[in-house]
């Protein structure tokens, strides 16, 4: 017994030593900057300004919340998130079902659909930009000149009504592979016997999907939903490359960047950052709470 306690103490001491490098690095590049951002959000700091910085309390937050463009950016971000995550989930589920069914060239197809996920967003957004340009873009060329599906060329990235959908299209193209990958992993966890039992009971393919696949896949869908929503709420690079946040595509991330870098208002931008952080934290806590509730009902 004495030895057991001893080992425990040794493990405890060694454990924290093992974790020390990771915790130290994360403290330097994670916790410290986050605390710094919070502290800065209470001041009127400006980037590269010679003026002394003053403590202004919550004023940046009041200014932020009374600023129309911030709310507009927030709404745009929510709409982009909701629409793109919904499409990604529907498409991803379809593709995942297709690629877990028995078919020829399944391995090759799985590899092929993952390619967009591997490319950095800045690069793929550039390619899409080149494809979507109204005059020489290939999308217009295909839809108008070759296939005659549209009467005239469309300015996909220059019309306020269309620019957000172009960003959604690029986001869907880029992240559907990720959703598909996670859903395929979830589908493989469903035992084949469940389907066999359902088939013996006379359930059609359609019924099997609604009564077996979907309920058993729910935990995976929930994880995907949260991960994607967290990512989409922070969307920056696709927007920045495609429209620079013009034409109704300003998201909270581009808004914050503009305040900090373009307008050099570090204090105000930090307040915007902290606000986004708070919103995302609410999402994370809700998720953890849901996950725990889910685990308890299982037990």
């Amino acid at each position, binding site marked *: 017994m004495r030895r057991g306690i001893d080992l425990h103490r040794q493990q405890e001491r060694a454990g924290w030593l093992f974790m020390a490098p990771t915790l130290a690095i994360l403290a330097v590049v*994670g916790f410290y900057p986050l605390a*710094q951002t919070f502290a800065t959000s209470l001041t009127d700091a400006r980037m590269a300004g010679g003026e002394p910085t003053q403590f202004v309390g919550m004023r940046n937050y009041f200014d932020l919340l009374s600023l129309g463009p911030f709310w507009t950016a927030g709404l745009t971000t929510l709409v982009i998130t909701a629409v793109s995550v919904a499409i990604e989930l529907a498409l991803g589920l379809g593709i995942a079902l297709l690629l877990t069914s028995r078919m020829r060239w399944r391995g090759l197809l799985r590899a092929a659909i993952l390619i967009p996920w591997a490319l950095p967003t800045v690069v793929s957004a550039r390619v899409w930009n080149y494809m979507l340009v109204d005059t020489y873009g290939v999308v217009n060329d295909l839809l108008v000149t070759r296939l005659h599906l549209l009467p005239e060329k469309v300015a996909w990235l220059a019309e306020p009504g269309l620019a957000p959908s172009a960003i959604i299209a690029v986001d869907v193209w880029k992240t559907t592979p990720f959703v598909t990958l996670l859903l395929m992993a979830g589908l493989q966890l469903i035992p084949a016997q469940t389907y066999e039992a359902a088939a013996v009971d006379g359930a059609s393919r359609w019924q099997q999907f609604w009564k077996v696949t979907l309920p058993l896949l729910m935990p995976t869908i929930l994880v995907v939903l949260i991960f994607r929503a967290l990512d989409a709420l922070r969307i920056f690079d696709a927007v920045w490359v495609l429209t620079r946040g013009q034409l109704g595509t300003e998201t909270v991330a581009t808004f914050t960047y503009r305040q900090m870098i373009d307008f050099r208002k570090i204090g105000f931008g930090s307040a915007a950052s902290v606000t986004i952080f708070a919103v995302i934290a609410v999402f994370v806590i809700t998720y953890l709470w849901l996950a725990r509730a889910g685990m308890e009902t299982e037990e």
Partner: protein
Amino acid sequence: MIARRALLWLTVSAMLVYTLFPFYWALNGSLQPAARLFAIPADYWPWPPSAESYRSVLANSVFLKAVRNSIVVATCTTLAALAAGSLAAYALARFRMRGQNVALGMILAMTMFPQIAVVGAIHSMMTALGLYNSLTGLCLSYMLFTLPLTTWVLTGFFRGLPRQLEESAYIDGAGPWKTSGM
């Protein structure tokens, strides 16, 4: 049956076109001579192929330096994340310690907050440390994204390894350091 197969392959083809066409278009663009890049109507087949773009990009010293920088940053980030992350993951997976779950949760929380929330502060920190515009600074800030993920993935991996070997080492009187192979 035939109709169903046709529908299946039609869906698969549509999926592949949507997924792969942008890559084809980038490849097509890279092989077109500069004058044909903005042709109306668009040119779908780069024939005869032109090496013009490849020649100019490979002769561009800024591009070559960027490639070298990327390789250096990727290598040192990966190595550092593996070194620190595997140690932490081993402790999290194998040792019984108080506050373990809190530590794991905090590491995960690192991946969840928006990067925009820390860029400003990282920028001023790097400037203060004299690391602004240096590869070391870049490696260090990348640790914020790679280290939590590395630790999480490796924790799962270590938990999956058989315990018996370590248990017999403990029984034989080895301490946690010796057992982990440090």
